[in-house]
């Protein structure tokens, strides 16, 4: 039960990041690595503002909005398609590394003795306060995305990923939708950074290292599994959101399992990778035999 709670906490903490990657990778069909930088941007901005004695709720709001600004910046770099999304994302991550250092002044800020939104929840609801806060964010972010993708705006965002020329033909500016999509994506990444900072009790300039790959991996695992349950190729936001969550839960469950059995640290990532390959292959075999 306790292990289940640990996995849930870790998964919920990074769930907004997976959603962010889902929007850029699956909806806009852009490989955007900026999330790695905006994850730390959210975290560093939040930690810095707390230290400046700004209200935790306002700090959180400013921090996640700064993630959106990173989204605006990355879409501006990609304007006119002169720089491809992968290169732009990598360059933006470099730029954000320096910006994050500039914000924090030092590579690591400790906030565990500061009052945060999450610590208020813990004070009020006890031990499960952190989990409750993460669950609220989980439902809120799901709700917002469900509403967004059931409107014309959401439909146009999907149209950008599927066929940007179509958008142009119906008189819409594809670039505007790219900005909006990347804004939401990086907003969610920064939100994940803010929550991570509150749970970890510090912000570190290196804490985003490799996080985009984890999110992409989780996204693909979840998608692969859900595609087996429902082979309907129609766009179903519920199914996609569930696949994002399922993916991150499976990823962290695998690592936690190996930690629990006391695996030698040298073998940990090897076995995590092998077991995920094993899982995906088994699913693929099942799909093949069904066909």
């Amino acid at each position: 039960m306790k292990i289940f709670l640990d996995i849930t906490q870790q998964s919920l903490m990074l769930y907004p990041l997976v959603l962010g990657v889902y929007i850029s990778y699956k909806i806009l069909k852009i490989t955007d690595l900026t999330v790695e930088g905006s994850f730390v941007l959210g975290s560093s901005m939040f930690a810095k503002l707390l230290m400046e004695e700004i209200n935790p709720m306002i700090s959180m709001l400013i921090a996640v909005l700064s993630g959106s600004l990173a989204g605006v910046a990355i879409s501006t770099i990609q304007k006119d398609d002169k720089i491809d999304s992968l290169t732009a994302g990598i360059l933006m991550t470099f730029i954000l590394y320096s910006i994050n250092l500039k914000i924090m002044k030092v590579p690591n800020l400790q906030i565990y003795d500061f009052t945060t939104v999450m610590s208020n929840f813990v004070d009020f609801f006890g031990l499960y306060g952190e989990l409750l806060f993460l669950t609220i964010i989980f439902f809120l972010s799901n709700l917002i995305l469900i509403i967004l993708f059931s409107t014309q705006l959401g439909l146009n965002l999907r149209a950008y990923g599927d066929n940007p020329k179509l958008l142009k033909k119906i008189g819409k500016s594809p670039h505007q939708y790219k900005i909006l999509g990347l804004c939401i994506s990086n907003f969610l990444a920064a939100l994940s950074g803010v929550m991570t900072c509150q749970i970890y009790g510090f912000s570190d300039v290196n804490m985003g290292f490799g996080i985009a790959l984890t999110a992409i991996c989780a996204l693909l695992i979840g998608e692969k599994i859900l595609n087996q349950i429902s082979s309907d190729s129609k766009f179903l936001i519920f199914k996609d959101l569930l696949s994002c969550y399922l993916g991150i839960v499976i990823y962290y469950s695998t690592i936690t399992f190996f930690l629990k059995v006391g695996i030698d640290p040298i073998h940990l990532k090897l076995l995590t990778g092998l077991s995920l390959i094993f899982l995906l292959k088994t699913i693929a075999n099942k799909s093949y035999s069904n066909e």
Partner: protein
Amino acid sequence: MIKIRNKLLQTVLFLMYVFSISNGYAHTNAFKVAVVIPMEHLAMNDIIGGIKKELEKDNNNDYQATIYNAQGDINLMKLIYQQIFRSEFDAIVPVGTIASQFAVKLIKDKPIISIDSDLKEEKKIKNFVNIESNNSYSDFTNLIQHVLSNSEKLYIIHSNDIKIFKKSSVLANLIKSKGYKVQIITVNNLYEVLNAIKILSRESGAILVLRDNLLVSAMPAIVREVKKTKIKLIASDEGSIKNGADIAIGVQENELGKKAAELLIEYNKTKTLNKKNSKIDSILFKNASSSIKIDPKMFHNKKIVTIK
């Protein structure tokens, strides 16, 4: 049917392999210690070696040290700590600042004997003690005055580790105040370290490397590059001298581990954490093949060790 049987067999074999290479958690009466390291390199191995060796010396009690390696992944470190939190460890030994930050955040009722960390207001944390060398800034300024002429420049190379970051900036200002030219170079990965040294190869002077995980792990490659130049390499640990650096003021890594083990043994016996006895005297290490000459009178308060 055959397919299902094969799959089942594969799964069973995989799980058997997993359990065969696992450390396991024996439920014995031993005093259980969790050692959390941020990544693996020679210095970390020396620290772990020091802990294990010293714990073995206590014949009256059994100790069981479990090593956790976060492999440079901060999220993996969080999962490790959740695992430690749920397990029955009697004490935690985190190495470095981030590992110690997690320990302080999550572990409230067990002693945390940290090695080489930099936590804010650490003295206020009841169950926490940090083991580090008592290197003073004046030790380094003395050494640099000894090694460098006024016309030569000092390059301080460091990664974005909070402890090293702060130390470098204070040290740079101190050395500048003595009339030396100083340049700080911040690097993020091994490639940048080597690239920076290649750029410096046309210059003369000295490179100072403080106790920094990234740089210490790259020391053999750094030495190889520096040897092609006239630059002197000043370090701050014994391991770097063994790898070929010219001179260093610091501690032997296994001494840090031994000190942690001493505090663990003391805690096991008295159930109180000794917060006073956590500093280790630093030593002046000199590489026998280095051209730098040392005047022992200048370092009369330091033990000098020459390493071949």
